[in-house]
């Protein structure tokens, strides 16, 4: 009887061992991603300029693109409308919040958060316009159009001169007023309110 039980138990152990195999490092699922597919999808632009395409544009050229593609929602001068304001850097060089701003404001209406006073990287503007604008037909602007309209928004915010050419070399070198205001998240839970 005992031997029988041992045999039965042994059989179950063997089955259990057989079922519980250790998983592999890799399963081999999925297909190698073709280079062309990656190139097609990988349109992101980084602060160091990685990802910027060939092409160029100035604020002068951008004015036409802006009027045609953007002004209806963002206002003729970028002051905002149905969509958010893009231009506005009052008071010059200051964030639209914080002690310096509050001191400056004294009774004035609030300044909106804009490319000029809040965006830390000019490359982000290129990335976002190419990625998502205009909302009704995203992805339809040429690289030159995007460089131009980005130049126009930067010039309107008095960050670059009107005649400055924006391309893969110059855009990453534009220093945005808000560049150094960003700090990493330091919240860690616990009693402190942050």
């Amino acid at each position, binding site marked *: 009887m005992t031997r029988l039980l041992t045999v039965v138990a042994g059989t179950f152990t063997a089955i259990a061992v057989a079922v519980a195999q250790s998983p592999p490092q890799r399963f081999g*699922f999925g297909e190698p*991603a073709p280079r062309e597919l990656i190139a097609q999808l990988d349109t992101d632009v980084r602060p160091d300029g990685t990802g910027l395409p060939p092409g160029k544009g100035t604020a002068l050229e951008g004015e036409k693109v802006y009027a045609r593609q953007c002004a209806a929602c963002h206002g003729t001068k970028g002051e905002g409308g149905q969509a958010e304001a893009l231009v506005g850097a009052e008071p010059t060089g200051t964030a639209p*919040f*914080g002690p310096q701003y509050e001191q400056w404001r004294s009774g004035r209406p609030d300044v909106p958060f804009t490319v000029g006073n809040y965006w830390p990287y000019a490359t982000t503007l290129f990335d976002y316009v190419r990625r*998502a604008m205009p909302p009704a037909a995203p992805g339809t602007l040429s690289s030159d159009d995007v460089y131009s309209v980005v130049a126009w928004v930067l010039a309107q915010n008095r960050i670059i001169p009107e005649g400055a050419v924006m391309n893969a070399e110059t855009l990453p070198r534009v220093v945005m007023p808000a560049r150094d*205001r960003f700090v990493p998240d330091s*919240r860690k*839970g*616990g009693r402190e309110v942050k």
Partner: protein
Amino acid sequence: MQRGWVVLTQAGLDWHRSHLFERGSAVNRRAAAARSWGGSRGARRAVVKETTVRRPRNSSHVAARDGGVTRRTLLANTLGAAAVTLTSRRASGQGRPESAARFGRLPNELGARSPAEQSKRLPSAISSRTPLQDLHGTITPADLHFERHHAGVPAIDPRAYRLVVHGMVDRPTTFSLDELRRFPSSSRTCFLECSGNFGRQSGERTTAQELCGLTSQSEWTGVRLSTLFREVGVMAQATWFLAEGQDAALMTRSIPIRDILDEAMIAYAQNGEGLRPEQGYPARLLLPGMEGNASVKWLHRLELADQPFMTREETSKYTDPLADGSTRQFSFVIDARSVITSPSYPHTVQPGWFEIRGIAWSGRGRIQKVEVSTNGGRTWAAAELQAPVLPKAHTRFRLLWRWDGTATEIVSRAIDETGYVQPEWKALQTVRGRRTRYHLNPVTGWRIGADGRVLFGIERVTT
């Protein structure tokens, strides 16, 4: 429990008498019948009937304040049904409810809610909010899960769908939906919350749905991100990745690998079925405890890198201007928060016993305690937490309270397992400054007038 049952029943009957049975003779007869039932059988019936006619925004013991068109319509339907019930009961002479008079509907392929359950999301141009005041327990029905998207809900053919993983990986790979599903799977119940989940535009007439309906909870199922990363061979120097959606905004966020790898998954199922289109069908990133937009929906590309990409949604949006003039970036984790969902505006309460109900959650782990004050914050009592209390999950809290009929304010505050205490608005303002915009989780409350009307305690969150 027994005490609560009787009280609810009494409240239910009172509600019927004052709000329903005053209309029409058939209805009065019905009321008489209700009164004459007596005993436990009658009590049970009254509760059931209460449930049947319950308006979406009511819980069983609190009534809606103003009778709008919707309510009148619903009442008319309900009263019609009641009259029919009464007539047929008399005709049969057996005292059977109408529902028991004939064989019911046969099994079918797809269920539907009772027509009396009319809870709805509250949509705007860019989002829709979960009707928190109507929900019980902690799971949000998938069709009531909040929505937030930047360029509408895309239609994606699951057969054509591919997730591409590339960048700092040994083997750039595409995965079809079937291939994702073939990997070992994992399920996780957790909340999602939009970074901008604090609405108070309606002042004292703010509902729980307007206040914080941009949070919902589901059981999500998918493949762990760590499994996928092992499969493609993520390089040692990779510290961040870009997650990109295939909506019209090609929405992108950079995610720090170290902070999320233990819990992140690519989810393809929600509450037991495929994701809803507005939740990212056919697959989305899911980062438990973190601001909703980082859990990129309609996920079609992951690019591994050694630094963040600084996309628009992590620079100009979803960052926190602070009182000192700096801007906090990558504020992923949702701090602890609670909200009383019942009673809430526009409910009306009556003196006597009722249950204060709400939900609490923290992106840092489990809710340890929820305290409720019934005197505007002077004293606090620990609410009962519904087990199991899951990490990074909505936790239902309840406190039984006997209201004496004097005007007051009911308030809740959550404490999580790190010891973090949900802050008052003023404390948040001190740190974040006047123009803080996202990640707001202040203590909130509801004022109860001597007439029983419930209004949002707007003063508590006003500078």
